[in-house]
């Protein structure tokens, strides 16, 4: 038996023994997701037990080094763990922007001291982070951002406003792009890390068309950000003035992550499920709707193959480095189309805004949520610009 097969068997038994049955149920609402943080509460004992056993084994961040709270798994081992978890439908024990975004940035650009402190806090679910990128005047044109940190020697005094900060009202710390040099557009931004409870930070949730408020406006009034949190632990990532490099790296990482969700909901065919759904409500699929579903399934299944090819090529270094932009563009457009079709199949039932039958308006709120897919993390139009410039090498773009 190969080492990887041994690992698979061990993982399977470990999951069997340690993952509670409740944690193998599909996630129904945001309560089912454990985000960690200073004020975190568990929904039930099962969620707590599952989180703690994973934390102790390093499985909240399996591929991170053991010294930083991970399990030090190799890429193939991490893939086996993902496969085995997905086989039994195990929920992620911990979700956070620390795991998805700040972690990878620190692993790439952080000092040893920063890794020791912040990565361990993230892995143990102690600190909940949010991301401060966009500003009211700086969406797609992010580099035009104005939030300013005035140099005060051993610290900066930060003033300005961020927008679309996900869960800022529940976060403990923020990783934040702050301009430190007004004369240098690209090389005048610093990637700062600071405590939201330190004074001068206010957050205001934004009510969205879905009726939910996952995003906030975040205001900074004379916020003090130390340049250092102790030995070898600066209050910024990378170099002062070079925060744009970190931000670009993270945006690329985010697009790669989205692109990698090949086997997930994003790419699956829906026709079969839609026929079942329609039969359940006593309806029949109109031939024209069935035809649209079939064309959708062709595109969705073809994109599944693309996602697999994309991952294979990334792993072997064969893919074009700008390919994640293409994946993000197609994947998000496809997801919007999927929810349009689901709404059409659902008919008037899918219009219900808070009925019990629809789980509190899941179909309609979910449909509205997907409209952000092709806006957040780089709009479809920006993705097409990048493809034009970097892959097709069209002039003047």
């Amino acid at each position, binding site marked *: 038996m190969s080492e990887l097969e041994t690992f698979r068997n061990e993982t399977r038994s470990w999951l069997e023994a340690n993952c509670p049955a409740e944690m193998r149920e599909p996630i129904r609402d945001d309560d089912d997701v454990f985000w960690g943080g200073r004020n975190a509460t568990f929904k039930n004992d099962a969620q707590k037990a599952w989180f703690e056993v994973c934390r102790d084994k390093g499985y909240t961040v399996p591929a991170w080094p053991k010294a930083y709270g991970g399990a030090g798994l190799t890429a193939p081992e991490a893939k086996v763990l993902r496969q085995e978890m997905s086989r039994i439908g195990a929920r992620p024990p911990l979700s956070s922007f620390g795991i998805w975004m700040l972690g990878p940035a620190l692993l790439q650009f952080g000092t040893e001291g920063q890794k020791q402190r912040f990565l361990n806090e993230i892995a143990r679910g102690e600190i909940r982070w949010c991301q401060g990128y966009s500003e009211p005047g700086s969406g797609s044109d992010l580099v035009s951002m104005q939030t300013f940190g005035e140099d005060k020697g051993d610290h900066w005094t930060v003033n300005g406003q961020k927008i679309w900060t996900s869960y800022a009202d529940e976060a403990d710390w923020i990783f934040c792009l702050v301009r430190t040099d007004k004369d240098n557009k690209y090389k005048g931004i610093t990637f700062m890390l600071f405590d939201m409870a330190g004074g001068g930070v206010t957050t205001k949730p934004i009510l969205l068309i879905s009726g939910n408020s996952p995003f906030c406006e975040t205001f900074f009034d004379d916020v003090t950000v130390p340049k250092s949190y102790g030995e070898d632990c600066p209050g910024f990532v990378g170099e002062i003035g070079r925060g744009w490099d970190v931000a670009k790296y993270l945006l690329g990482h985010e697009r790669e992550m989205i692109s990698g969700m090949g086997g997930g909901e994003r790419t699956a065919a829906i026709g*079969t499920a839609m*026929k079942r759904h329609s039969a359940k409500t006593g309806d029949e699929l109109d031939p024209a709707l069935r*035809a649209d579903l*079939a064309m959708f399934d062709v595109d969705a*299944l073809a994109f599944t193959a693309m996602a697999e*090819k994309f991952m294979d090529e990334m792993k072997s270094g064969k893919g074009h480095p700008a390919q994640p932009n293409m994946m993000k563009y197609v994947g998000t457009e496809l997801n919007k189309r999927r929810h349009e079709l689901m709404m059409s199949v659902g008919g008037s039932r899918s219009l219900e805004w808070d009925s019990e039958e629809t789980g509190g308006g899941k179909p309609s709120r979910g449909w509205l949520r997907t409209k952000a897919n092709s806006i957040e993390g780089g709009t479809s*139009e920006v993705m*097409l610009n990048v493809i034009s410039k970097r892959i097709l*090498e069209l*002039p003047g773009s």
Partner: protein
Amino acid sequence: MPLYHDEDQAMLADTARGFMADEGNIAKQLRHWRDRDCPDGFGHALWKQMAEMGFTGMLVDEDDGGLGMGHVEAGIVLEEIGRNLTPSPFLTSSVLAATALKHGSNDLKGRYLPGLIAGDSVFAVAVDETAKHRPSRITTRAEKSGNGFKLTGSKSFVIQGASADMLVVAARTSGADDDDDGITLFAVPKNAANMSHDALRLVDSSMATHTKFDGVDLDGDAVIGEVDGGREVLNAMLMAGRIGAAAEGVGVAGGAMDMTVDYLKQRKQFGQLIGEFQALQHRASHLYSEVEIARAVVIKAQQLLDAGAESAELMSSVAKAKVAKTAGLSVKEGVQMHGGIGMTDEYDIGLYMKRDRALQEFLGDAYFHANRVAELSGY
């Protein structure tokens, strides 16, 4: 297996790309034969050269004198054929007929495969009977007659039917027109009596026939596979052909796209390169995305077929439909972005549009295959 070409396949792709660009290019083949009104619609010398390259018998088992390669390899050659719009009997002879003959007797293999491998023979496939692909309905009948059969009926869209040394004909030996069972495949030789071809030139300059069988006498040994059990052979042949046609379609889509992107970098209007206009950039980038996806689903389908996976059937229809849509988009965007010059015969982009149309229709268009995806998925 990763979804990209391994080292041997990458080498084959380099070879095929160079060979087709040099020998199979539009000026040397498509325009050459078209402008001479060639009744075959392709060049026999190129077919012979393709044999020397080892292409003609790639799918034939090694025991039968071939190279025993798979559909990924055949697809590599087909993509280059598509990119160069090369008229050749490769898809019908080396993919479709060769797949059918795998199920044939040793006698049949001995009679036909050496000629194919040597590039001396050309085969055609006669399945369609009406203007749309509908292999579930076969009305051409082969009645028992002495030791053999008497074939009566008509077929259409028989590509290179008049040039073929042998036609693989799907006929009904029992049951009703729409029955699944009761189909038999026959290898009908060129010189069979009472067979007549009405040869026509199609929009892409390829040659196809309406072929009539007016009591064609066939020996019992003309049967490919089992009498009445031909549906399975027919399905295998169609699946190989559809995945092959999809691979060729990716070549057509890629060729038209490359030409168009090049043009955007050369053509100036309003004092600037038209490729600087965002309206065109976004459309080109969208097209690029679709072509990448089409290429991915085709290699997925090829690998599944080579591995004998059950899901190859579904994925073959996904691939054929996806490529039809994508290549269609590529040639339409191509002509539009070329502007007036795209409407001229002198410029090649229009040839891509014409080839794509014919290839989309061959073995089922996007509607046929999207519907099949729904049926195979149970809705």
